């Protein structure tokens, strides 16, 4: 789960990482009030779960309340890479002497947390890594050993920080960032830029914070930060019904059992010349009720022109899936043609059930490839 800048900063503050004071607002009027309260120059920052806000005009410096209100008016409603701006973070403006980059990522390859730190902040880190690797200090932290002071030193010396005051602040900040990373079950904590003010204060000017969905049950306060408005309506509905669903851009709705099989089905649909409309995994169990829920969500997507069921029964029983399809057709109004491929546990029983009920617009195919081709054909 990705957090907004203001949420990440709230967590930063909780762990003792310096951030600027600010207010969350949703209207130009509130932006004005916030700027008044904060005093002086403020920055009006669009809160969206995507990068590139600055270039898209989502971040503006305001001289005072009036200016802030005007900027808020301009930025609210803006579409940044498909994300509509609904919230703004009004923050006291900082004087910036230098901009660094500091991040902690979950390195699944090394099975350790990975620190990255460079004096070249405010820019794309992958670019620095590719073009000037010597400017980028990288360091793994073993989860059993935990963060040790030497790691901070390696980052600091590695990146070439020479000022002692900065060294001390950055060492402390890195330790706190690690604590935040572990205690919040984060997959990413990025501070870009990490700034040094003219008076030598080091603070986090931005935040990118991603938390492991599987660990949210341990962090009800973070789980509550989820903003359902940030997701496509189909994904919101899926979340409510506990269906594993990802919205895509095509016209063939896809359902299957097991993440790998569904991904494979999407690929096969594409190879057959179609475009998958979604990823939807019935999961291990896959009872009739789950099938109905999933079909409801998939068919609610107006882009969907045909629906493909690809079931390879293991734990999932094909007769149960067939029952779910028939129930869904009774209860819901589904006009798109449905193509079904059933194999594995109780596949014959399942196919027999479908054949007996023989609903219109339902096509049974023998193999995954055949089914995908048929579904693509039926989605004009």
């Amino acid at each position, binding site marked *: 789960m990705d957090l907004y800048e203001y949420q990440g900063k709230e967590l930063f503050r909780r762990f003792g990482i310096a951030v600027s004071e600010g207010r969350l607002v949703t209207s130009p009027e509130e932006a004005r009030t916030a700027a008044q309260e904060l005093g002086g120059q403020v920055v009006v920052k669009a809160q969206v779960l995507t990068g590139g806000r600055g270039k898209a005009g989502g971040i503006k410096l305001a001289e005072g309340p009036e200016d802030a209100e005007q900027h808020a008016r301009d930025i609210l409603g803006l579409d940044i890479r498909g994300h509509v701006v609904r919230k703004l973070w009004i923050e006291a403006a900082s004087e910036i002497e230098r901009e660094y980059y500091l991040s902690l990522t*979950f390195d*699944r*390859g090394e*099975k*350790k*947390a990975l620190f990255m730190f460079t004096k070249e902040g405010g820019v794309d880190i*992958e670019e620095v890594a590719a073009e000037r690797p010597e400017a980028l200090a990288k360091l793994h932290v*073993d*989860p*059993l050993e935990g963060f040790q002071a030497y790691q901070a030193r390696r980052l600091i010396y590695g990146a070439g920080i020479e000022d002692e005051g900065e060294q001390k602040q950055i060492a402390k900040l890195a330790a706190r960032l690690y604590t935040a990373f*572990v205690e919040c*079950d984060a*997959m990413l904590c990025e501070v870009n830029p990490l700034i040094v003010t003219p008076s030598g204060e080091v603070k986090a000017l931005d935040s990118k914070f991603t938390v*492991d*969905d*599987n*660990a949210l*049950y*341990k962090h009800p306060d973070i789980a509550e930060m989820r903003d359902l408005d940030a997701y496509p309506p189909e994904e919101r509905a899926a979340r409510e019904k506990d269906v*594993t669903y*990802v919205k*895509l851009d095509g016209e063939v709705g896809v359902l*299957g*059992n*097991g*993440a*790998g*099989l*569904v*991904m*494979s089905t*999407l*690929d*096969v*649909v*594409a*190879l057959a010349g179609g475009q*998958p409309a979604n*990823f939807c*995994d019935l999961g*291990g169990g896959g009872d009739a009720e789950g099938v109905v829920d999933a079909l409801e969500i998939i068919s609610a997507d107006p882009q969907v022109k045909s629906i493909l069921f690809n079931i*390879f*029964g*293991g*734990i*999932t029983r094909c007769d149960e899936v067939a029952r779910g399809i028939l129930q869904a057709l009774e209860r819901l109004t589904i006009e798109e043609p449905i193509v079904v491929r059933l*194999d*594995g*546990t109780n596949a014959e029983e399942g196919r027999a059930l479908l054949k007996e009920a023989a609903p219109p617009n339902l096509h049974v195919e023998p*193999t*995954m*490839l055949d089914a995908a081709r048929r579904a693509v054909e039926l989605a004009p």
Partner: protein
Amino acid sequence: MVQGLTGREGSFHGVRNRDYGTQVVAGVTPGKGGQEVEGIPIFDTVAEAVAEAGANTTMVFVPARFATDAVYEGIDAGVHTVICIAEGLPAHEMLRVYNYIRPKGVTMLGPNCPGALSPGKANVGIIPAEIFREGSVGLVSRSGTLTYQIGHELTQLGLGNSTIVGIGGDPVVGSSFIDVLTEFEADDETEIVVMVGEIGGAEEEKAAAFIQAEMSKPVVAYIAGFTAPPGKTMGHAGAIISGTSGTAQAKKEALEACGVRVGTTPTEVAQLAAEVAGVRN
């Protein structure tokens, strides 16, 4: 031993594994010590199951939030092989488990894996054995049902399997492709290997280099997720393209650069395997 044998899934698969021929000597469910599940004795703790029933391998079937504890309990009681079927474990917990068990030489499959099956010999996990037949193809995969699909296609082409291993779909799992490929390379019953990867991480890329450098047996591969968008978790916690890394295309290219042929559909990878098997037979 099965941790969580008294649960719905645990009892179904535990008993099925036992009936397939696997020696399932004990179940563990705290508070239910002294009970039985179809003749398999239940203990309160893994330590008792080890001491009294002689268990040396554990299959973990408990809900995600108890799974890490169950794994530690198994390892600390002296179990050397852990098959973690449970899914949904927090990634940081698994990070600690991995770094804890790895230097101790404990073998772990999963979490979020279907287990391992040697057709005709033993089945530990949830792989439906009836799809597979005995043979010489080693199959290793990050995914469950996709493995069944490919196994099914192999069977239809007349190919059987030596062993099928699901390593699990989470970002951090106990065994990598390389670990299993190493076993297959050393296994007399395996002649060819089919590797089934998917988006996310770089284990397929590492495996590619390993295959080129270390393996004498032919390997063919399949990768799922060419159509997956970046930044979205595709069902498996581990199946996510982060930024520009972990794409199916990059994995395919890495494998092909190391001389590993990659099928674009389950059907095609099975055909590639059959072709290689034909050449060798």
